[in-house]
């Protein structure tokens, strides 16, 4: 007993050390980026800025938030993230539950049909024409409907659903529960960790997505924040390349920002909200699920 707990202590100590190394290695790039986003643009060009801004400025963030339409863009992003994620998780989970049941007739054939779509993609133009036919172009729904279902996420969920012992479902059935009730009242509460994980994946996808808005909408009202910021960053620099490049009258003060530092500030502005959300999801990962208690 004594020996084992000493071993445990060693293990714990080693483990903490390993984790600290991982933390240091993973937080460093983020920290450098954060520092850079608060540094003056021209000065940042000289490099060597790691731990603290050398010439502190808020200009990069000011530029990011200068145009007030960004708040509307945030609104679009938040809406699509909430609606898109809820729809995605609910729909995918439902299909996944059906697919997870051995009793489902035609299960393997369905799976092959689904897997096939993971590998073959028709390209932009056929999709554009399809959305046009469906009336999705320039509609908020084009941001959430096409991503409503993902075979990959379905498979992950399916594997989790399958790991729930069959007897639990059988005994629920004997108690007279139908498949929908079993799914809603038994399976979903038991598989909160995977639902949280998929919600996180889907949420992050929606949060960062902008090509769909770029391709399938033209209205500003539907512009998500990532698209908004992508435009700010590439705008002026890109357009100038064909003139004998010049921002012409820009005074020295305007050099507070550079495309580099602006990019960093943009990254921070969009990443911070996600990082804040994460701890709320985390509780689903930390707690073990008491299957036994349901069994009894």
């Amino acid at each position: 007993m004594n020996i084992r707990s000493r071993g445990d202590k060693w293990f714990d100590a080693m483990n903490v050390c390993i984790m600290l190394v991982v933390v240091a290695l993973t937080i460093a790039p983020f920290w450098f980026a954060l520092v850079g986003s608060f540094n003056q643009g021209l000065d940042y060009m000289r490099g060597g800025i790691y731990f603290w801004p050398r010439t502190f400025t808020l200009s990069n963030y000011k530029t990011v938030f200068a145009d007030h339409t960004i708040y509307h863009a945030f609104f679009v992003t938040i809406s699509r993230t909430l609606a898109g994620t809820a729809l995605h998780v609910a729909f995918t989970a439902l299909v996944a539950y059906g697919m997870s049941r051995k009793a489902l007739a035609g299960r393997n054939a369905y799976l092959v049909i689904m897997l096939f779509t993971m590998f073959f993609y028709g390209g932009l133009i056929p999709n554009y024409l399809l959305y046009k036919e469906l009336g999705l172009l320039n509609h908020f729904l084009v941001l959430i409907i096409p991503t409503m279902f993902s075979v990959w996420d379905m498979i992950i969920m399916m594997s989790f659903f399958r790991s729930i012992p069959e007897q639990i479902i059988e005994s629920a059935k004997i108690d007279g529960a139908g498949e929908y009730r079993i799914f809603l009242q038994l399976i979903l509460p038991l598989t909160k960790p995977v639902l949280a994980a998929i919600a996180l994946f889907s949420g992050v996808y929606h949060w960062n997505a902008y090509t769909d808005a770029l391709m399938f909408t033209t209205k500003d009202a539907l512009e998500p924040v990532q698209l908004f910021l992508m435009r700010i960053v590439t705008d002026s620099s890109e357009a100038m390349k064909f003139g004998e490049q010049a921002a012409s009258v820009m005074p020295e003060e305007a050099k507070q920002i550079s495309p580099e530092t602006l990019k960093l500030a943009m990254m921070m502005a969009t990443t911070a909200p996600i990082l804040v959300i994460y701890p709320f999801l985390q509780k689903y990962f930390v707690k073990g699920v008491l299957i036994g208690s349901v069994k009894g």
Partner: protein
Amino acid sequence: MERTLEAGRLASASEMKASGRRSRWKSQFALQSMVWPGLLFLLVFSYVPMYGILIAFKKYDLFLGIMDSPWAGLTYFREFVTDPNFQNVLRNTLAMNLLALLLSFPAPILFALLLNELTAGRFKRFVQTVSYVPHFVSWVIFGGLILTVLSPSNGVLNLLLVKLHVVEEPINFMAKPELFWFIMVGAEMLKGIGWGAIIYIAAIAGVDPELHEAAKIDGAGRFQRMRYVTVPSIMGTIVIMLIFAVSAILNTGFEQIMVMQNPLNLDVSETIDTYVYKVGLGQMRYSYSTAVGLAKSLVALILLFGANYVSRKLSDNSLF
């Protein structure tokens, strides 16, 4: 008397069978009704636009459109496999992926397991949150930072190595083709370890604590519990991830490589994805890039079924 009893028993048995069939049918209907919306979705949003793949076999002319462009047969497939660079590009793709399967595939699993063993709840949560942060740093920035750290003139690593007299002269890491694959896989691992672990952390969270209690009572130590309780419980997830990782063996992190590529490592850094982008999509040669994409997908599909088959033979775990 006997006959009636017999008959009655028979009647009740068939009745039971009938009701069982009914409930099975009811249950089947419910299950089918759950799955069909998914199939319908894929029919509309994946299968309907799939005719776009035809351009792989056509000399695609924007003006004529997908259907009316002239057929090209296998021209573009042939162009790819007879390219003098084909072998080199294939080799690099496979090498980097095999290395990744060996190193960066297990890393998140190990990380999730170790994280699970952390006893202090708050520290655990902190580590987990921090570890997935690099996922949000774009490759352009992340790769740029790695280049800075490895830089021969003022990189931290070289300063350290020179100070510690490990090397005499700073090493230009990015000019050493023999190191490139390792740098790539290492960077990928660092960036993806926390994000990749989420799914395993979720799987571990789903493990029934009673199993651990039972093992504890049996006198199992921590390693033993990890080995005989946790790992088997998440094996299903691991296998599925592995099957897909194997099927994706021709894919490489496009952005990552584009950022870290330079003329001196081009011989080892050019992969199918980067090469096809440069000579295909980057030149708006849609037929060519679709053809190569299609070929890659076919290989991936075959590998998926193959890996699934092998996994089913070797273990209880498989996709289907």
